[in-house]
C-alpha cells in the first residue's frame, strides 16, 4: 500500500491542510529568502561584509538555513508526531484505528510521515533555498546533498522515537523537553566530536565535517576537531555513512518496537534480545571510535598523528563509562516488566516460580549488559591486561553493581511503592550516587566521594595511575553488599506478589 492509499496518512494530510499550511510555508520562504538576499548582497558589495570569500559567505548563509531546517524538521516534527499520537490516543481515535484491519506498519507509517507534513513542507522550502545558496556561492553540490540527506534521515529517526513516545507517554511534552535537554547536553561532546557516539547518531559531526571538507577552510582548531574521517577500530569511515548506518541500525529496533506496541500495546517496548543487541551495537561503535587512542593498551596512549594534544589528558574512557551507565539505565528501565504484567502472565501461564521471574526481570538483563561491557571494555586493555587488570575489574565490577542495584531498586520500588515508585527510585539513587559527593564537600574529604555508586569506575579510568585502586576495589565490594540486601528484599516482594496471583 502506498502512502496515498494509507487512510491514516490521508487523514493526517487533511488535518494538516485544514489547519493551514500557507502561513508556515511563507514563514519558511521568508527566512530562506532573507538568507539568500544576504548572499546576493554580499556578491553585490563584498566590502560590506567580513567574509574572506564567496564560499565562506555561502557556508555561513547555508549554515543558518540548515540550522532553521533542523529546528523545524527534527524538533518541530518530533513534537508534532508525539503530540498528535498522544492526543488521538486520549481521544480514543488510536484505539478506533487499531480496531480496523489496517496493519501495524500502515498505522505507524501514517502517523510517522503524515503528522509532520507541515514541517516537511517548510523543510522542503528551506532545502530549496539552501540549494540556491550553495549554487550561488559556488560550493560543492555534495555539501548540499550530504547535509540534506543527514537532516532528513535524522528527522525520520527522531520521528520514530516520537511515535513511540506518543504511544507510551500520557504527556508527550515531556519527550520534547527531554529532546531539547539532550541537544543541550550534547553540546558538551563538541570538545571531542570525533570520539563521541552521539555526534554521529545525531549527524553533528557529519554536517560539520561536510563544511570542513568542501574547501578545507577554517582555523586549525576546528579542522583538528571537525575535519578528517572518524575511525572505527582503526578503520576510517565516512561520517555521513557512519551516521546513516547507526541511525538505520537503531531505527530498525525503534521501528520494531513501534510495530509491536501498535499490534499489542501490552507488549514491552523492547524484547530482551533487542535490548542486548542495541546495547551491544552502540557500545561497540563507541569503543570503536575511541580505540585509536590506546590501541588496546590502556592506559598507555599510543602515538597517533593528527590527534590533538587535548585528548592526551582527557579521561575519555571514564566519560564513556558514564555514558554506558546512562544508556544501561534507559535500556533497563524500558525492559523492566511491570509487576502487574508479571502477575497476569503468572496467572495465564500458571508459572509462579522465582526462576521465571528472574529470567523475565531487568535483573538478569543487567547481568547480560554487564557481560557485554566486560567483553567490549576488554578491547581497550587487551594488550596491556597485565598492568591494567585492576582498573578493568573495578570498572566492570562498578558497572555490574550499578546495573544490578538500579534494576533491583526499580523493581523493588514498583512492587513496594507502586505509583510512587519513580520518586523512591530517584531518592535512593540520589542517596547512593550524589549524597557521597555532597558529604565529601561538606567534610572536605575526597575519600567519601569515592563511596558513590558512580565513583569507582570513573575514578579508576580517569586516574589509571592512582595508588588507591585497592580502596576502590573495596568500595565495589561494598556495593555488592547493597546488591545482596536489595536482592533479598526484591525476592520477598516478588514472592508476595506471586501469592496474590490466584
Amino acid at each position, binding site marked *: 500500500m502506498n502512502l496515498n*492509499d494509507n*487512510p*491514516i496518512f*490521508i*487523514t493526517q494530510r*487533511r*488535518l494538516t491542510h*485544514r*489547519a493551514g499550511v500557507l502561513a508556515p510555508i511563507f514563514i519558511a520562504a521568508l527566512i530562506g529568502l532573507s538568507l539568500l538576499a544576504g548572499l546576493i548582497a554580499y556578491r553585490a558589495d563584498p566590502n560590506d561584509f567580513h567574509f574572506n570569500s564567496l564560499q565562506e559567505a555561502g557556508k555561513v548563509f547555508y549554515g543558518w538555513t540548515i540550522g532553521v531546517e533542523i529546528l523545524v524538521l527534527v524538533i518541530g516534527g518530533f513534537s508534532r508526531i508525539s503530540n498528535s499520537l498522544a492526543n488521538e490516543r486520549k*481521544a*480514543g*481515535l488510536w*484505539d*478506533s*484505528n*487499531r*480496531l*480496523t*484491519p*489496517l496493519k501495524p506498519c500502515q498505522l505507524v507509517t501514517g502517523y510517522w510521515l503524515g503528522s509532520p507534513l507541515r514541517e516537511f513542507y517548510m523543510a522542503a522550502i528551506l532545502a530549496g533555498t539552501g540549494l540556491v545558496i550553495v549554487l550561488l556561492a559556488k560550493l560543492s553540490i555534495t555539501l548540499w546533498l550530504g547535509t540534506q540527506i543527514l537532516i532528513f534521515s535524522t528527522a525520520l529517526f527522531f520521528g520514530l522515537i516520537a511515535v513511540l513516545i506518543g504511544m507510551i507517554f500520557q504527556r508527550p511534552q515531556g519527550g520534547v523537553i527531554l529532546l531539547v535537554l539532550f541537544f543541550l547536553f550534547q553540546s558538551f561532546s563538541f570538545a571531542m566530536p570525533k570520539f563521541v557516539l552521539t555526534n554521529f547518531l545525531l549527524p553533528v559531526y557529519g554536517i560539520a565535517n561536510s563544511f570542513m571538507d568542501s574547501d578545507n577552510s577554517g582555523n586549525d582548531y576546528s579542522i583538528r576537531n571537525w575535519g578528517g574521517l572518524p575511525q572505527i577500530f582503526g578503520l576510517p569511515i565516512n561520517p555521513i555513512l557512519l551516521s546513516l548506518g547507526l541511525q538505520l541500525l537503531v531505527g530498525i529496533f525503534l521501528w520494531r518496537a513501534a510495530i509491536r506496541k501498535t499490534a*499489542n500495546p*501490552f507488549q514491552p517496548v523492547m524484547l530482551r534480545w533487542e535490548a542486548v543487541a542495541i546495547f551491544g551495537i552502540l557500545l561497540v561503535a563507541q569503543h570503536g571510535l575511541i580505540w585509536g587512542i590506546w590501541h588496546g593498551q590502556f592506559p598507555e596512549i599510543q602515538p597517533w598523528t593528527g590527534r590533538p594534544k587535548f585528548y592526551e589528558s582527557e579521561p575519555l574512557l571514564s566519560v564513556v563509562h558514564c555514558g554506558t551507565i546512562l544508556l544501561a539505565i534507559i535500556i533497563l528501565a524500558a525492559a523492566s516488566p511491570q509487576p*502487574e504484567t508479571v*502477575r*497476569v502472565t503468572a*496467572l*495465564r501461564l500458571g508459572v509462579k516460580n522465582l526462576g521465571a521471574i528472574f529470567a523475565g526481570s531487568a535483573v538478569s538483563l543487567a547481568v547480560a549488559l554487564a557481560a557485554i561491557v566486560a567483553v567490549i571494555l576488554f578491547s581497550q586493555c587487551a594488550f596491556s591486561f597485565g598492568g591494567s587488570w585492576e582498573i578493568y575489574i573495578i570498572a566492570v565490577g562498578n558497572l555490574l553493581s550499578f546495573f544490578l542495584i538500579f534494576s533491583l531498586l526499580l523493581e523493588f520500588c514498583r512492587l513496594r511503592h*507502586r505509583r510512587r515508585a519513580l520518586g523512591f527510585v530517584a531518592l535512593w539513587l540520589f542517596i547512593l550516587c550524589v549524597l557521597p559527593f555532597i558529604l565529601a564537600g561538606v567534610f572536605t574529604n575526597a575519600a567519601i566521594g569515592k563511596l558513590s555508586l558512580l565513583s569507582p569506575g570513573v575514578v579508576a579510568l580517569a586516574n589509571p595511575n592512582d595508588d588507591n585502586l585497592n580502596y576502590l576495589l573495596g568500595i565495589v565490594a561494598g556495593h555488592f553488599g547493597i546488591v545482596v540486601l536489595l536482592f533479598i528484599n526484591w525476592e520477598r516482594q516478588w514472592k508476595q506478589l506471586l501469592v496474590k496471583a490466584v
Partner: protein
Amino acid sequence: MSNPLLTIEHLRVDFPEVVAVNDLTLTVSSGDVCGLIGPNGAGKTTTMRAISGLQECTRGSVKVGGHELASEPGELKRQLGFMPDFCPTYDQLTASEFLDHFARAYDVPNRAKRIEECLELTWLKEKTNALCEELSRGMKQRLVLAKTLLPDPKVLLLDEPASGLDPLGRIELRKILLQLREAGKAVLISSHILTELSGFCNTAAIMERGKLVMFGTIAELGQKMGRRQMSVKWRADGGKPMEILKNANVKNLEATNLGATFDFDGDANTLDELLKTLVVQDVRVSEWRGIGDDLEQIFLQSGAKELM
C-alpha cells in the same frame, strides 16, 4: 439452531487489585441482540474492550465469526464493529471525511455510496459536510454508530449507544437495531436505560462484580426470576376472562380497560397453558405480553447491588 457469531469462554480480565471480568462465558448468535446489564464497575465495558482486543485477557477465549482473538486478530477485526461509550471523532474532519477514513481502513467497496447509506441510516445526511466539532454529542454518537456500521460487520459491540441521544434518536436507534437483528447480525449492547433494551433485546446477560449472574433469553430469565408481570387484552365480545384468571394461579389481578394485569409465579409452560385456556374458552385475546420493563424487573430481581 441459530449460528453463534460471538463466543466467549471463561474470559478473565485482571486489573491491579481487582478481577474486572471473571470466568465469563456467553454466546451471541446470528439475529440475537443481547443486553449486557450490570451496575457501574460490573465489567461491561471491560468485557467489550476484551472482546475487541483493546484489553488484555488473562485467560479464556473470544471467537468472532469463528475467528479466535488470540490467533486471528486480523480476521476478527473485519467481522467486528465496536462503538465505545464516548465519541472519538476527528474534530477537524467533516462527517463524510471521517467516514471516508474508516471506509478506506476497512477497504469498503463502493466507498462513496456506502458512506451515503450510513449517513442516511443514522439520519445525518444533511450534516455530510459539517465538521465533526460542529456536531452535537448526539450527532457525534450517531456518526460513530455510522462508522461502526460502515464495514457491515457480523458482530456489533455497542457500549451505551443511546447515552447521548435525544428521545427521537433513541427511537431511531431502536429501529436500526431491529433492522440489524433482522439482518442476522449478532449485537451485544450495554445500556443504562433498561426500558430501551427491552424493546429490542431477545437475550440478556447480567453482570455483577465481573461475574455473569444470569444469561439467557428474556423469557428464560423471567422464568428464572419466578414471577412475571403480565398484561392481557381482549375483545369485548367473548368468554369470561376475569373468571378464568381468578381461577388460575395469578396474583395481584387488576382489571384494566378490556384487559387485565397480573403477576404470574408459574413457569413458561403453565403460562402458555393459561393462554390456551383463555383462547379455548372463547376469549378473543388481542394482546398477551410481559409488561414493558421486563429487563428492569429481571435486573432488579437478579440481586445486582447497585442500580446503574
